[in-house]
């Protein structure tokens, strides 16, 4: 069913990530202010962008689920959110390490992306407990979809509010030269971002395949159980 396409995607992912790593450590120049520590930028920011994209994608799949009631959309939404949550943990951890290396503190309230991610993480961490607290599968999927849509709409609102709350005089802690990024840095960043997107797509497909297989297995077992008591 997924067969060769998944294998091709995986190979492309590995190649892109490999290229990105080479570019990060052998091509991109060291940044003036932060020095070598800035290399974390090529990991942390793509992680953040893809995690946010994943949450929004999960919300869109949830809208489709609510509109069509087909369970496959619910499955896609669930896997996307599940993956993005893991990436969000990565964002928080790498961001914390970056903060420690740059500013000497394991956490900085002045970095709006990090703070926003903390709130987003706290919200999406309730997704699975919510699902498991509802037994009826149809209702579980429906309520989970409502949650995914609300949470997906919440993400940009949250970022706006947190950004505004930062003291605008205080410079961004973990930004880079930003708009003045030299071309070599920009290229490296784009390849890193592409690698992260591909990684997400690959893992998503893998988890979808695994969940589909598990569902089919359950159905098969149920049908076999119905065949059991056969008086000969």
């Amino acid at each position, binding site marked *: 069913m997924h067969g060769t396409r998944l294998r091709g995607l995986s190979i492309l992912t590995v190649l892109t990530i490999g290229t990105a790593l080479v570019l990060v450590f052998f091509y991109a120049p060291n940044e003036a202010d932060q020095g070598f520590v800035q290399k974390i930028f090529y990991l942390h920011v793509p992680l953040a962008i893809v995690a946010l994209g994943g949450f929004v994608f999960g919300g869109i799949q949830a809208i489709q689920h*609510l509109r069509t009631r087909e369970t496959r959309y619910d499955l896609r939404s669930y896997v996307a959110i599940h993956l993005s949550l893991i990436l969000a943990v990565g964002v928080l951890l790498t961001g914390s390490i970056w903060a420690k290396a740059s500013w000497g503190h394991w956490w900085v309230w002045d970095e709006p992306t990090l703070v926003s991610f903390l709130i987003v993480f706290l919200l999406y961490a*309730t997704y699975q*407990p919510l699902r498991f607290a509802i037994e009826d599968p149809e209702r579980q999927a*429906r*309520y989970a979809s409502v949650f995914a849509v*609300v949470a997906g709409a*919440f993400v940009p*609102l949250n970022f*706006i509010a947190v950004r*505004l709350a930062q003291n605008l005089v205080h410079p961004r802690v973990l930004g880079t030269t930003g708009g003045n990024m030299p071309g070599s840095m920009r290229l490296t960043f784009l390849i890193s971002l592409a690698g992260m997107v591909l990684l997400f797509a690959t893992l998503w497909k893998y988890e979808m395949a695994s969940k589909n297989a598990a569902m089919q297995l359950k159905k098969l077992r149920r049908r076999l159980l119905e065949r059991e008591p056969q008086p000969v």
Partner: protein
Amino acid sequence: MRRAAATILRKDLRLERRTGETVPAMALFTLTAFVLFHFGLQRGELDGELAAGVLLVTLLLASVLGVTRLFAAEQEEGGLDAFLLSPADRTALLVAKAAALFLFLAALELVAVPVFAVILLGPGPSAGTWLEVAGILALLDLGLAVVGTLVSALAAQTRARELIAPIVGLPLLVPALIAAAHALAPLLYAGAPGAVPGRWLAVLGLYDSVFALLAYALFDFLLED
């Protein structure tokens, strides 16, 4: 739709007046929390940002604890099925419940804010400023009411209802808290209070609008059975 909503609202208000399940408990919780803050912070007088923070966080916690009973009557007595069978527009239930929650919160604040001013607030602002405080709280209550109703409906059918509502609701309320805290803090200084930065009122307004829209679009999906 308006008549159905008004009927449900009247029913809920009458129920609350007779049984007093929600508002007294929220008020008691709030007052206790103020005492806890006094001992926890080891302060007798607060002003500015600290005062705004203590007041708003307490109100937020009280509200998410209070929403757990919002749909209790519908669930336990079968009122929900009766409603679904009636020709009433389902949004009427949303409007009625949100309006009820808003009124409960307003009632809570009518008690809690004066108590707060007396026991925890420092010299405090002048009379005119209190009107502005009331305005900010009203704007916040709108958001609290919408989000609270949505979260309560979501949590009503789950097993760990009392936990699900707070852990889902509180992160969702963070932007509203940020905006309300920044708007309120300058007002709670003694003497000549600062002006309310209009930007934060705009953020609160945006928050309320977005969630009202979301609730309107999604509430029906929570009611099917």
